[in-house]
């Protein structure tokens, strides 16, 4: 679908902001104190946590648009299954390849051919760049879970492109 392509192009461009090395940061020093990163005040670079929080907002908004009947989950596992099947299908036109859990609040979602990693060459060559391409989606999962009433920490890892694993750890209140 062509509009899925638009999202992928936009995502790639957002990640590319991370790579931008701007020797002249330009005007626009933020009035409020910024965190640890000296470069962040200029606004020229998005860092991983920013990408993750953009993804989080999108995940929340997506979650809010779900039909009511989809939200009648009986168990936590049902929510995760929903993410792996319905959400992934709607967003990436494919389902997650596997879901594993230790039944103690940790889930590993595996996608053997994650669409946002496909533009990078398959194989180990670009491994170190992969986290930038996963941050947004980690946030997206966390945001969708949040709307569905579940607080979590979501991280991702890559063994070999274009496959990746998302680890979801449920936070107990």
């Amino acid at each position, binding site marked *: *679908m*062509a*509009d*899925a*392509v*638009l*999202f992928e*192009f*936009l*995502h790639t*461009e*957002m990640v*590319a*902001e991370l790579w931008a090395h701007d020797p002249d940061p*330009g*005007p*626009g*020093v*933020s*009035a409020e104190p910024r965190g640890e990163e000296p470069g962040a005040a200029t*606004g020229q670079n*998005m860092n991983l946590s*920013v990408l993750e*929080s*953009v*993804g989080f*907002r*999108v995940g929340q*908004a*997506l979650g809010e*648009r*779900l039909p009511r009947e989809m939200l009648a989950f009986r168990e936590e596992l049902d929510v995760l299954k929903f993410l792996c099947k319905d959400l992934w299908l*709607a*967003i990436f*036109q494919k389902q997650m390849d596997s879901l594993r859990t230790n039944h103690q609040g940790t889930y590993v979602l595996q996608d053997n051919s994650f669409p946002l990693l496909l533009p990078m060459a398959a194989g180990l060559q670009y491994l170190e760049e992969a986290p930038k391409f996963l941050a*947004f989606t980690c946030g997206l999962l966390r945001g969708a879970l949040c709307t569905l009433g579940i607080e979590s920490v979501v991280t991702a890892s890559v063994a070999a492109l274009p496959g990746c694993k998302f680890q979801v750890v449920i936070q107990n209140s």
Partner: protein
Amino acid sequence: MGSQWLFTLTYGALVTQLCKDYENDEDVNKQLDKMGYNIGVRLIEDFLARSNVGRCHDFRETADVIAKVAFKMYLGITPSITNWSPAGDEFSLILENNPLVDFVELPDNHSSLIYSNLLCGVLRGALEMVQMAVEAKFVQDTLKGDGVTEIRMRFIRRIEDNLPAGEE
């Protein structure tokens, strides 16, 4: 729920983030234009592969392709083409609905923000890759209370192809 929502929601979250990162609307507008340009120079290949349109012979053909093929393909809308200049080097795209702005309201302190400015960069970047230097800018915006959204397109010049002809 679907991938169109994903794009518009992601775009909205991006604009929100840029407004936090940059001091003023002008800088956000520039950043959106730049990002759009970077997207446009790659999107054109995707477009040409999907659409099978041939080379446009003049700016009028280009306008038709932009409105009836490209916008339809990527954003699901067909803007109308109006207000041709006498020389045929300027026209307007009128968008009755702008899908990017569903669910969006401009907060009061961002009156100079050109919310959809990414689109102007995309048009500029894509057309540059087919040897056309153009200027694209919003002249009306429903987000600012106008009745329609209008993008003004201006042909600047043809870009000479510097590559030697007849490569393998």
